[in-house]
């Protein structure tokens, strides 16, 4: 017992100060890809998860990137597209609206637009503000989540577990994971919702008292990711249930999940795709 105490004291405090202080990912970290204008933008076939799409109209070739679908493999930023696409370092990508995760670049134009036009974006802002004030009224600043594996590869699950380790210790932020959906304010879903889990997913979410928050953690939950839709996969949680917050990543690093949960709670603003 004494040894344990000595070891613990010797180890000291290892807990991060995120989000009070920013987290700086290491140099090689692959965050949100940044698409630069130019004719060398990669064709959609380069992306193994189908996050890149293109359309050609009078305005030129538009290349769009869906961050919810992106697996951050970095392939689109490799030779020969190096420079046209670079892997950014931004990981605080959670959004309340799936469309906010779409980046579109016009190949012959230097501007980067959000996925949709300005008009509905304002409506969404108002919706988001209403949603977060309602969440705050009901839940206060604390959130009890139930993890729900809907067919994940276990990477997102491990990162959710990591939130409880001494480094991230999300309990310091009033966030915890509970054993029963009946004790939860919401669910953190990982995986694309497999056919074999669809019933269990529905029943688990129904067991969470209303109003409840559904957070789609990682590319598979947010969009189907690299799994996509298939005979055994629904291709994203929002095919089955309404989703409140989408957290991109394959898997999202623990700070990215903390960011997303705080967005869900209305304690942080979702960061919109930066307008150039």
């Amino acid at each position: 017992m004494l040894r344990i105490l000595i070891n613990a004291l010797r180890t000291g405090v290892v807990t991060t100060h995120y989000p009070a202080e920013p987290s700086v990912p290491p140099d090689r970290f692959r965050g949100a890809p940044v698409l630069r204008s130019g004719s060398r933008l990669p064709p959609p076939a380069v992306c193994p998860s189908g996050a890149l799409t293109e359309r050609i109209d009078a305005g030129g070739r538009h290349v769009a990137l869906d961050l919810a679908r992106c697996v951050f493999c970095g392939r689109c930023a490799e030779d020969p597209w190096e420079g046209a696409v670079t892997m950014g370092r931004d990981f605080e990508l959670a959004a309340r609206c799936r469309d906010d995760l779409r980046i579109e670049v016009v190949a012959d134009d230097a501007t980067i637009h959000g996925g949709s036009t300005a008009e509905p974006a304002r409506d969404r802002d108002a919706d988001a503000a209403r949603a977060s004030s309602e969440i705050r009224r009901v839940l206060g600043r604390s959130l009890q989540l139930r993890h729900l594996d809907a067919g994940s590869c276990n990477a997102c699950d491990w990162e959710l577990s990591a939130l409880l380790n001494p480094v991230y210790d999300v309990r310091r932020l009033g966030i915890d994971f509970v054993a029963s959906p009946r004790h939860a304010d919401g669910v953190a879903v990982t995986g694309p919702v497999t056919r074999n889990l669809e019933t269990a997913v529905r029943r688990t979410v129904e067991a969470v008292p209303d109003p409840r928050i559904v957070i789609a953690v990682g590319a598979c939950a947010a969009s189907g990711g690299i799994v996509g839709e298939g005979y055994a996969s629904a291709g994203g949680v929002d095919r089955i249930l309404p989703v409140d917050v989408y957290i991109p990543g394959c898997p999202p690093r623990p700070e990215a999940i903390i960011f997303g949960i705080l967005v869900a709670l209305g304690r942080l603003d979702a960061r919109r795709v930066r307008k150039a």
Partner: protein
Amino acid sequence: MADHTVRFVDPADLPAAAAVLTGSHAMALATVVATDETATPDGDLKVRYVFEPTAPGGPDRFVTLVISVDATRPEVPSLTTLVPAANWHEREMRDLFGIVPVGHPDPRPLVVHDGWPQGVFPLRKAFDGSRRVAVEPAAEFPHLVAEGEGVFEIPVGPIHAGIIEPGHFRFSSVGETVLNLDARLFYTHRGLEKRMEGLSPLDAFYVVERICGVCSVAHGLGYCEALEQIAGVAAPPRARLIRTIALELERLYNHVGDVGNVCAGAAFHYGTTAGMRLKETLQQVNERLAGNRFLRGLVIPGGARLDLSSDLLRVLAATLRDTLAGLDALMERIEANPSVVDRLDDTGVLHHQTALDLAVAGVAARASGVDRDARRDHPHGAFVGVDPPDLHVVTASEGDAMARVTVRALEARESIRLIGEFVRRLEAGPLQIALADPLPGGRIGISAIESARGEAVHWLRTDAAGRVERYHLRSPSYHNWPAVALAGQTAIVPDFPLVNKSFELCYSCTDR
């Protein structure tokens, strides 16, 4: 590269041929791969039963028995009563290909759940796998349960109380004693093998790397080695070393985390937290090396995607020193804690013969005295070559949870030593070798990789255009799950979490 013998046998002769291999040749079933070749001139379905030697340090060899199956009457003799390890393989090919193993003792579906339509076989080529198949109301799954006075059924899962993967466990118990344990898995079946068919092998790599989070490197590497066999190239020496450093790092963060996790099952919270912290430190180093905490993005077909600079290697060396000290301190605390040791000793015993019969892999096999390690028996990565590093394969004879924890801790130490050795061997050189585009058609690649969980067998074949025609992964967990159910029956109900955590298996790479 492994010596691969292929023999065509008549279906009627299959049991006799398998008996010779598993009997006098002392071979074990490595994997079973069914293929739909109805669109080829052969016009049939085929099943390949791949065997490997079990003698420690035996030759790097695979023997495949191939049988042709008539698509209009798809029946094969079942091997399960003769080769128990064939059990799930045969149920899987019945579900996915409609190939009926005649004489199989278990008629229940394995991979498909919930009112899956009759006569629909998703891995047949004619089946369009791109659309989701609706969930239909279904009768309750016929679990294998014990009956009698005072026998309780305890259903657990698929959604568990902790942050873990989904599976259903049905205990039949009298008081705390487990009479029978029936595990139902494949909840995370995503149809990934079908998903890869028709893709360019380079595109398909990104799917393989994401079959399982905690085996990302091992599965990525296994696929790459199978692919490189097809392409007829070998990754450059520096790339091989970097890939193998990644493989050992993956083993290390898994093993260290798993030792900590076992403590959670015994309510030893200091141990749990210490293990979590050590694992977290390693995953932070992973992110510095690969840009991803699960080391995704380091391995690539043809070599390594990223180099390891001397700065990064310095960071790595310092972390490994701290990890070694931390792991030793943790094991010391576990061994000095009678309440933990008492829970682990004699708990969840897997007998040596059972481990052999089920072709159990990895830590679970070695803790039951099975001296098998694919790093030695099917050399891969930097374990190949004229001067392979000296690998100490750790074994124990008890087969209980304590033995599995001890073997795991010793293997983690061995991984730290190996990484040091690989770093010393690094010499300047190219990182990648180009693969032909398109790849040669109609070729088969087979590889076996020792992942953190044990031996994983990859089987890949290209079609005429050099695309993925069929890929099959037999993960170590696939062979180990039935052993967990048997070992669980020797424990009491409250010890099952300990048994389960001491095996520490993946659901996602079993289910695919």
